[in-house]
């Protein structure tokens, strides 16, 4: 059975059909891309999966459990983590605190321990500090641990956002335009990192991306959307040559 199984997902905003009968099955360990022109409904799909919106119709089954109607934080706790198109770090918190915040729901101590700084508090803090610094090290961010996250360079902020998502120990990672604003060299690094992430953290990855080079280079399977409809699906080589895709992106040939 698929790890993430989405059937007949449909979302209306008033009279606008943003997503129409969207289906996708993610098998464990896959890297799948979701592409399409602006306004095609890709980010809406992400927002539906992560519970920001409740779909008008359709089912989302994750790990054998229907997650439609669950709150965003419950879906994250269940094992689906995401990053954002426009980076949303906790900019007034330090780099390491960004990671620790994502660890919060697994934290072993409660409100009373927080007020009184009990032994349980110190144990929990030590544990999370070790965990966070180890994770930062994997992303080459340990040297910036105590800097404000808002002061990091752009590329490092992108890496931190991914590291933060991983700190929730997800099974599925959803990346919303991870290469946005990156130059070709940075994009190459990112592609390498996505493969490495999948292997190292045993992830299944779903990503939206506009840079075709990245999508084609990293995804094993691609789904193309336009005006809320799925217009094409397949391996990168197939997508590249499909006339419907070319039409959606470039318009009808004369």
């Amino acid at each position, binding site marked *: 059975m698929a790890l993430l199984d989405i059937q007949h997902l449909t979302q209306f905003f008033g009279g606008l059909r943003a997503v129409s009968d969207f289906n996708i099955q993610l098998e464990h360990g896959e890297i799948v891309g979701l592409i399409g022109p602006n306004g095609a409904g890709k980010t809406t799909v992400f927002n539906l999966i*992560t519970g*920001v919106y409740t779909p008008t119709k359709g089912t989302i089954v994750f790990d054998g459990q229907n997650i439609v109607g669950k*709150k*965003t*934080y419950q879906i*994250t*706790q269940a094992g689906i*983590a*995401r990053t*954002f198109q426009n980076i*949303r*770090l*906790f*900019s*007034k*918190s330090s780099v390491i*605190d960004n990671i*620790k*915040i*994502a*660890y*919060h*729901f697994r*934290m072993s*101590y409660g*409100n009373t*321990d*927080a*007020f*009184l*700084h009990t032994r349980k*508090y*110190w144990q*929990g*803090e*030590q544990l*999370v*500090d070790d965990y966070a*610094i180890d994770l930062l090290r994997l992303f080459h961010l*340990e*040297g910036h*641990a*105590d800097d404000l996250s808002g002061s990091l360079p752009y590329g490092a902020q992108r890496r931190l956002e991914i590291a*933060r*998502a991983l*700190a*929730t120990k997800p099974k599925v990672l959803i990346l919303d335009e991870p290469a946005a604003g990156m130059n070709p060299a940075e994009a190459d690094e990112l592609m390498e990192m996505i493969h490495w992430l999948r292997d190292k953290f045993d992830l299944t990855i779903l990503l939206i991306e506009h840079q075709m080079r990245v999508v084609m280079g990293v995804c094993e399977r691609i789904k193309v959307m336009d005006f809320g409809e799925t217009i094409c699906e397949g391996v990168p080589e197939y997508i590249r040559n499909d006339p419907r895709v070319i039409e959606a992106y470039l318009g009808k040939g004369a």
Partner: protein
Amino acid sequence: MTFLRRHRTLATITAFVLVYAVIKTLNLTGTLNAYYIQLIMLVGINVVMTLSLGMVNGFTGQFSIGHAGFMAVGAYTSAMITTVWLHTSTANPWVGYPVFIVAILAGGLMAAGAGYLVGAPSLRLKGDYLAIVTLSANELIRTVIRITDVLGGPRGLGGIPKFTTLEVVFVFAIVSVVLMRNYLFSSHGRSMKAIRDSEIAAEATGINTTKQKVFVFVFSAFFAGVSGGVFAHLLQFIHPDNFSFVKSLEYLIYLYVGGATSISGAIVGPAIFTLLPELMRSLQSWRMVIYPLILILTMIFRTEGIMGLKEFNFILIPQRQRKGVSA
């Protein structure tokens, strides 16, 4: 290492005790008369009020503007308890003080209850609803007290035994500041700041933001309630108009001028602006010109408040040294 950290909490307490010692000495030598001592006690109460408001407004990024309402709930609850129970036996401190402590804690709990009623429905929503609801709640509470005869109604409630001394205020302020400081330096405190910076991202990292916001709002109301109790047993007479929206506004001023995102700011703000009008007394009417002028200048030149994001050293809990990390 653990010793050093405990040592830090000791440092916080030491700082407060030193301030207390100086004030007490000046009092005993006659430099500070009873009037100034009362003023200093008000500073202590205002510090706790401001810091508890800062928990919601500064650190969680919500906008509550009716904090005096919760103070009123605590003041009236505790005053009712002590005046009804102790009208004859105030002379015996062994009976008086335990009842006083129970009374102010009961006041805190009542205020927390009120905080839950106000916060639970409005914090579910994102945006400015909380401001409108807290403002209304503040006036609602004041009006209910005004028309309730048992509470003294528009005449106010007098005959409250005087339990609040300089020592009581200091112990109260130390305990409150340390508890709230501890909470901020915890996983829960980090979550508060996460909600402030980006509520959407906080949800996406698995934080139940509604629950966290309501909890902060409730304990903020609790501390406001206890402050109200301490306040009532200082003045010995309380009036519904003591807790009007104007009072709430004062706390907002203390908070934002001191620095809403700093514990130290919540100490500096009320300290300066409670004492300043008195220190400028010789300027007579001009002080009402200078006071707002100082506010305006602070906001222009230090938008984030006097302290900004900075903390006094004795407030901080130091990060532990990590092995094998080159900064």
